[in-house]
């Protein structure tokens, strides 16, 4: 796995077997990042959910039916070369950027021209375009976070791994004369998850829990075969879950083609 120039690469390990699909992570994310509520939230292909929870099943009839949930934030790809995400390189206006210090892929909404080329490039549907002006009815604007600017119509937005929290942690570390500790920088979804399914930290730092978790034989990443080299790992002991994380030809065995997972 590649890393950033500083050697830090923030990422997540999400234990699918622990996820109950409660959606607390999505709600926390929306609240933390000032994601508005549109008049028609049933139009799911146009509503904005930085962290979407997908429900999957094993395609078997009752009573053998099993379900699982894939919470899907932005995957913060690095690509085969370690710095080439599907989205960053295509943006004509440099409105999205992969931070070499942290490996976090960010979005600059005020520079975005709204061409949606990055939306087309992302296979995870992690990028959202503001098709509507977000209404902030009286009262709903009061709990807005001052740390994240609300976005306007016509621009793309996405999960930033709560980058403002990293900036805050970095400021604190600077004042303290230390480095950013694992507990000082945690995303809102990680904190909100009641079952502890989401673990966040520096994938390259042996002192962070994610460093060990990603080495699990049950760890895998979404669409590993496309060489997106994501920073979000998933874990499941169930093979049918792992198989749905990527595309396989019918004769292919899971273990043979899995490229990422446990290294």
């Amino acid at each position, binding site marked *: 796995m590649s890393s950033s120039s500083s050697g830090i690469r923030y990422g997540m390990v999400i234990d699918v077997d622990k996820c109950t699909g409660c959606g607390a992570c999505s709600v926390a994310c929306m609240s933390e990042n000032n994601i508005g509520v549109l008049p028609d939230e049933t139009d799911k292909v146009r509503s904005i959910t930085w962290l979407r929870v997908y429900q999957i099943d094993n395609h078997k009839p009752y009573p053998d039916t099993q379900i699982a949930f894939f919470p899907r934030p932005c995957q913060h790809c690095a690509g085969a070369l370690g710095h080439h995400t599907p989205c960053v390189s295509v943006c004509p206006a440099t409105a999205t950027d992969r931070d070499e210090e942290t490996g976090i892929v960010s979005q600059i909404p005020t520079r*975005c021209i709204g061409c949606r080329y990055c939306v087309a490039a992302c296979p995870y549907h992690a990028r959202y*375009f503001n098709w509507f002006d977000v209404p902030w009815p009286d009262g709903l604007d009061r709990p807005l976070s001052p740390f994240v600017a609300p976005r306007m119509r016509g621009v793309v937005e996405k999960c930033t791994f709560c980058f403002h929290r990293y900036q805050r942690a970095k400021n604190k570390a600077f004042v303290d004369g230390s480095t950013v500790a694992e507990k000082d920088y945690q995303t809102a979804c990680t904190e909100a998850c009641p079952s502890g399914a989401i673990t966040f930290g520096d994938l390259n730092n042996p002192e962070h829990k994610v460093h060990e978790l990603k080495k699990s034989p049950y760890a895998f990443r979404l669409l590993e075969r496309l060489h997106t080299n994501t920073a979000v790992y998933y874990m499941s002991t169930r093979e049918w879950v792992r198989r749905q994380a990527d595309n396989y030809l019918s004769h292919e065995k899971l273990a043979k083609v899995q490229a990422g997972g446990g290294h």
Partner: protein
Amino acid sequence: MDDSKFWPRGTTRCGTVPFGLWMLFCLLMLGWALVSAFLVLYKGLNQTNMNDYFAFGVWIVVDLAVIALGAGAFFTGFMTYVLKREELKNIINAAVIIGFICYSGAILMLGIDIGQPIRGWFGFWHANVHSMLTEVMFCITTYLIVLIVEFVPLILENRQINKVPDLHFFAHNLHTIMIVFAATGTFLSFFHQGSLGGMYGVLFARPFAARTGVLIWPWTFFLFILSAIAAGPSFTTSIVMITEIVSGKKLTTQKTKAMMAKVSGYLLLFYLVLKISDTLYWAFVQTPGMGLSPSVYYQAPYGTWLLIAELGIGGILPCILLLSPQVRSSYFILLVAMLLNCFGVTMNRFVMTIQSLAIPVLPFEKFIAYLPTWQEWGISAGVVAYGFIVFSLAYRYLPVFPQEPKLNPTD
């Protein structure tokens, strides 16, 4: 109202009433586009049926198609001025006007398609040199300037405007240095036709669109250039032939048309050999490597009929027809062959845009179809109406076809 003193010398045109009615029809179409554009700019892109799955829609298809079809301008310019094919001087004016219409229409459309039109210039100011779209933006804008420079002398050759000595000399001097602009246009066009193809080929996480390639250029880069220069001359000649049918006049000789057809035919053959090789490699090597079977790509309504329509009806068939000397000496079959060639390139742009986005990549994602709204159709129709208006006015008042007075001696 008699406007005959503005007609090109030695020609006649239809009366003002039928021409006015035609213009009225075009203006009505343009009105539809203006209402649509107002709604989109005022209310936002929610007026379309695009969504986070179909980030691109019919506008990008039309954009890419008209830019490919407008390639007749640069390639005919290249053959006329750089390769010195004198015969093509009889059609170069029409090629330039059509190119101008296609490129300006595409840029107008892109201005509406982006979510923040006022920030359109950010692509130049905050240019990301790694993005194929940046290259497209730079090249189509600069090439449009080249096309304007090529179009201006023709406008100045209007019978009345040309009476002004300064403008007459200005037009004449521009003509004498046209080779510089033709060469610049060729350079710019090669790159943006390629970058438009590259835009899809570099989407390495979108298996339908992604292609391998050479250095930083995916194969689609070269395939888009080739398909554009194969279809462009066909489109230019088709428009000239349709104008001939509508006006009842002969505007260029069959020799000129046949030369354009021959160029189109051979380029199409070259393109098809590479495109079919690319498709086979993509379907049987690259796609299985990503864990997918080609059958996944062709789901209703985007079934294998698209492949047959694009490469069979719009590719192999016109190629065979255009390479046949009998067809090139005919009129209507030649026109059909050229229109089929244009259909093929349009289907290619449709497939690369819409089908690329329709294929779900995550195994647990759903397949979603897309149909444009009336506003999207309105703006697409507006580009066509704009083309009709500019070309009709140009034909009526400018000496577009140098052979016209000689070929229609009764006028």
